[in-house]
C-alpha cells in the first residue's frame, strides 16, 4: 500500500526517468548537452544576422546528431571494442582516398562526396583513433611498456599526418590529442611526458619547415597580429575588440556591434565566441565555461566509474578531447593560441563537428549505462 502511494506520487518523473534509462541516456549529461545546444541557437541567431534559415538548418543537424547519439548509446561498449581496429582501418583508408582524390581537385580536399551527403573522413578519425589506441593498450598490462608506447605513437601519428596533409591543422591537432589522451589515462609516466614535450619544442624548427605558407602566416600573425591589421591579423584584432568592448556585463543579446557591422569575420563559425563575449560579457563567458566544465566533469566521473580498461581509457580520452576543443577555440579567439580552425564545440555553425561530438557523448553514455553488463 505504502509503495503504491509513493509510486503514484513520483509517477511522472519516474516514467520519464525510466524512458531515458531505457534509452540508455545519462540524464545529467543529456541536460548539459541540451542546454548548450539551446544556447547555441540563441547565439547563432544573433551572430548569423538573425537569419531563421540558418537556425533551421542548424536545428536539423543538431536533431540528427542527438538521434545518432541516442543510437550509439544503445550499442554495447563491447561492440565498440570489437570493431575498434576495423573502424580505424576503414577511417585510414577513407583518409587516403580523400588525399588521392584531392590530387585531381584543387587545393584543400577534405570531403568525400557520397552523392546523398558529403562525408569528412577526418571527423570519423577523431573517434576511431582513441578507440584504436585504447583497444591496443587494453590488450596489455598498464602502464604501457616502451614497445607498446612506440606502437601507440605510430597509431596516432599516421592519421595525424594524413589530416595535416589535407591540410587541416585544427583537426590534426584534435586527433593527436585524442590519442595522447588515451596514453595519459593509460598511465604514461610524467617524466616521459616532459621528455616528449621537450623534444617537440626542439623539433619546432623542423615542423616550421614542413608548414604550408598560410600555416606559417597564422603562427606569425598570432605572435604579432598588429603587424598586418588589414590582412592576416585582422581576425584576431577584431575579435579582441569585440570581446574587450563587451566588458563585464556585455552589450546584451543582439547587441553585438562588431559582428553586425561586419568587422568580425566568421562570426557564426570559428569566431562565434567573440560574439558571445561581446553580448554577454565576462559573466556570460564564465557561465559558458562553467557549463562546459560541468559536462566535462560528468564525463570524467563516468570514466572513473568504469571497470574495464578499454572503456575507461576511451571515456577519459573523449572527455579530455572535448576540453581540448573548448580550450583551443576560445584560446585562439581571445588571442592566446594561434588560429588553427577549430570550431567552438556544440555552438559554432556547421554540422560535421556536432555530429562527431555527440557521437562521442553517445559512446560515453553507452559505456556508462551498460557498465553492469560488462564482465569484470
Amino acid at each position: 500500500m505504502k509503495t503504491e502511494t509513493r509510486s503514484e506520487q513520483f509517477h511522472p518523473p519516474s516514467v520519464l526517468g525510466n524512458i531515458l534509462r531505457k534509452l540508455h541516456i545519462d540524464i545529467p549529461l543529456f541536460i548539459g548537452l541540451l542546454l548548450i545546444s539551446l544556447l547555441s541557437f540563441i547565439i547563432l541567431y544573433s551572430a548569423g544576422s538573425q537569419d531563421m534559415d540558418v537556425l533551421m538548418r542548424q536545428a536539423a543537424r543538431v536533431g540528427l546528431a542527438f538521434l545518432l547519439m541516442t543510437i550509439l548509446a544503445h550499442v554495447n561498449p563491447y561492440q565498440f571494442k570489437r570493431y575498434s581496429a576495423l573502424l580505424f582501418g576503414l577511417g585510414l583508408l577513407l583518409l587516403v582516398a580523400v588525399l588521392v582524390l584531392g590530387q585531381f581537385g584543387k587545393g584543400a580536399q577534405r570531403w568525400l562526396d557520397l552523392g546523398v551527403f558529403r562525408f569528412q573522413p577526418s571527423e570519423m578519425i577523431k573517434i576511431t583513433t582513441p578507440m584504436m589506441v585504447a583497444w591496443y593498450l587494453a590488450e596489455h598490462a598498464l602502464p604501457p611498456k616502451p614497445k607498446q608506447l612506440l606502437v601507440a605513437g605510430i597509431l596516432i601519428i599516421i592519421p595525424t599526418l594524413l589530416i595535416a596533409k589535407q591540410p587541416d591543422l585544427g583537426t590534426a591537432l584534435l586527433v593527436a590529442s585524442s590519442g595522447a589522451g588515451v596514453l595519459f589515462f593509460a598511465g604514461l609516466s610524467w617524466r616521459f611526458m616532459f621528455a616528449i614535450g621537450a623534444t617537440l619544442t626542439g623539433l619546432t624548427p623542423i615542423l616550421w619547415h614542413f608548414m604550408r605558407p598560410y600555416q606559417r602566416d597564422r603562427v606569425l600573425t598570432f605572435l604579432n597580429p598588429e603587424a598586418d591589421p588589414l590582412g592576416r591579423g585582422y581576425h584576431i584584432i577584431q575579435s579582441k575588440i569585440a570581446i574587450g568592448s563587451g566588458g563585464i556585463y556585455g552589450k546584451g543579446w543582439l547587441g553585438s556591434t562588431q559582428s553586425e557591422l561586419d568587422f568580425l569575420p566568421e562570426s557564426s563559425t570559428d569566431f562565434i565566441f567573440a560574439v558571445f563575449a561581446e553580448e554577454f560579457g565576462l559573466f556570460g563567458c564564465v557561465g559558458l565555461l562553467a557549463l562546459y566544465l560541468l559536462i566535462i566533469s560528468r564525463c570524467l566521473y563516468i570514466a572513473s566509474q568504469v571497470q574495464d580498461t578499454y572503456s575507461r581509457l576511451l571515456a577519459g580520452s573523449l572527455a579530455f578531447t572535448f576540453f581540448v576543443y573548448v580550450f583551443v577555440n576560445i584560446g585562439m579567439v581571445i588571442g592566446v593560441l594561434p588560429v588553427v580552425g577549430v570550431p567552438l564545440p556544440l555552438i559554432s555553425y556547421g554540422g560535421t563537428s556536432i555530429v562527431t561530438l555527440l557521437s562521442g557523448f553517445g559512446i560515453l553514455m553507452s559505456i556508462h549505462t551498460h557498465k553492469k553488463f560488462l564482465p569484470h
Partner: protein
Amino acid sequence: MSRIYTVKNKLVESRLFLHRIIAAFIVILLLSSGLIVRLVYLQIVGHEHYTTLAKDNSIKIEPLVPTRGIIYDRHGKVLADNTQSFSLELIPEQIIDLDDTLLRLQKLLDISDEKIDQFQKQRKRQKRFVSTPLLISMNDEEIAKFAVVRPYFPGVDIQARLVRHYPYTELASHVIGYVGRINEAEMKTLPIAEYRGSSHVGKIGIENSYESELHGKTGYAEIETNVQGRAINAVNSVPPVPGENLYLTLDIDLQKTAYDALDTFNGAVVAIDIKTGGVLVFASRPGFDPNPFVVGISNDAYQALQSSDNQPLFNRALRGLYPPGSTLKPFIALAGLEYNAINAEHKTFCPGYYQLPNVSHRYRDWKRGGHGSVNMTDAITQSCDVYFYSLALTLGIDRMHDFLQDFGFGEKSGIDLSGEKQGLMPSREWKRNRRNQAWYPGETLITGIGQGFLQITPIQLARATATLANKGKVITPFLVKKSASPDSTAPDIATQEDLGFKPENINSIISAMVNVIHDPHGTAKSIGKDINYQIAGKTGTAQVFNIKQDAKYNENDIDFKLRDHALFISFAPADDPKIAVAVIIENGGHGGSVAAPIAGKVIKQFLGTNNEN
C-alpha cells in the same frame, strides 16, 4: 598465481586511472582559469581601450566595388558598358519609422508597390547599416523632387551608382546577356568576400560565362568613423582592380544585317570566321531589351516576355533544336565518297519516290515528277531526295552516325556560352537504350535527308559547315578573343583536329555546293548574282509535320506554325573560304527563297561584292 597477479594488477590499474582522472581534472581547471584570467584582462582591464576602438573611433572596412569590364565587338564598338545613374537609397537602421518613410516616399515619387516589396526583400537579406536602393536610375524630375524635401528624410539619400547599359538593346541580347540583382541562390555560390558591395551579377550570355573576368577584384578602404558611424577620414586603402574588358569576335554591324534580314520571322543566323573559329554573327530573333533586367524588370513586363508565342527570351541559336533537312545532304554525300559507297559519277534514277523492297510505303521526293537520272552533283544541286534515300540505305545508320558525329551533329559545339543544347544524332544504340526499340530501315532513309529523330542547333549547323569549308579541320567556335586587343589578328585557335578526308572528295562536294548557287538548276541561284567570287551552299526545308501519303503539301492551306522550317548553309569564297553562315527560319517555307537571301546579305557585307583576296 597468474590469477592473483591479474587481480592485483587490476587494482593497481584502477588506482592509477583514478589518479590520472584527478590529474586531468586539475589540468583542465588550471587551463580554464588561464582563459578566465585572459578574459578578465580583455573585458575588465582592457574594456575602455577596446570600447574606444569599437565605438568612438572605430576603423570600418568598406568594400570598394570594382568597375565591371566593358564588352566590345571585334571592331571596338561598345556592346555593354557602365553608365552613371542616380538611385534613391535607404539605410534602414538610420530611419526611425521605416514604414512611414516608405509611405511618404511612395506618395512623393509615385513608386510602385512591387518596388517596395523588392526593397523589403533585399533589406532582409542585407547586413545592417548597408545602403539599400529603393529606386534605381532616377530621372531629373525625381531627383529634383526629392532634393527639395531631403531634410525631412533622414537616412534616405541619392547615390550615384554605375549601372550596366546595353546600347544595342535587342540586337545581340542573347549573346551578350545581361546582369541582374544577385538573388538568394547566387548569394550562396558566389565568393562572399569578392561580392561584398556588389549588387549585380551576370545572368546569361557572355555576362554570365565570363563573370569572373568581368567582375574584377573588390578592394577595401579602412575608414575611421565617429560614434554616429559617419566617416571621418580614410586611413588606408587597397584599390579595387577593375574587371577585364572583353573583345568579342562578334561583328555588331554584321549582326544587325542578319537580325534585320530575319525581319518578322522567328529564327537564327550564325556566322563563323573560318580562319579562326571566331563567331561573327550570333543572332536569334526575336530578341529582347536587356536594359530593364538590370534595374529590375517589372513583373508584368517579364510575364509578357515569358508568355509571348514568339519566345523572345529563348536563345534559338544556342538552344533551338531543328531537323537539318536537306542541308545535311552534302555531309551524307561526303560520307558516301569517303566510305567508297559511291563515286561522284554514280547515277541513281529518281521517279519521284522511293520504295524499300517488299514495302508498299512510298518515300517521296519533294519534286512530284522526279529528277530522272541524277549523279551526286545533280543530287546536291537539285536536292534530290531519292538519291539520298538510296545512299543512306547503302551507308546504314551506324556509319552515318559516326561520320556525322565527327562534324559535331548532336554534340555541343563548345562555344563559350553556357546552356548550350546538345541536340540528337540518332543511332541504333540510342534507340535501343532510350526507347527500347529496334532501328528500322525507313528511319535510315529519312535520316539521309535530315529528317526523323535528328535534331541540331543553329550553332552546330554553322560549325559543321565551317568544318566542311575548312576541308575537314574541325572548327571550335568561340566568342571572346583571348588577347585583349581589338586589332589582334592572330588566330585564337592553334590546333585543329583534322578529320583526314581525301581532298578530291571534299572538292567535289564543294563544287556541287557551288552549283546550288551558280548553276541555272540550283535551288538558291538568286543570291549568286553580281559578285565576282563563288558562294557554296545548300538549301534545306525541314518538315514540321507529316502530310498523308497521297496528300499534297500546300503552303497556303496549312496553319503558319505547321509550315516547314527554311534552312540554308553556305560559305564563301568557295576557293578560299573565309566565312560560313547557317540560317534557320522557323516556319519560313522554302530554304532557297527565304533563308538563302539572308545568308547572301551577310556574306556580301562581310566580303564585299568584289572580293580581291
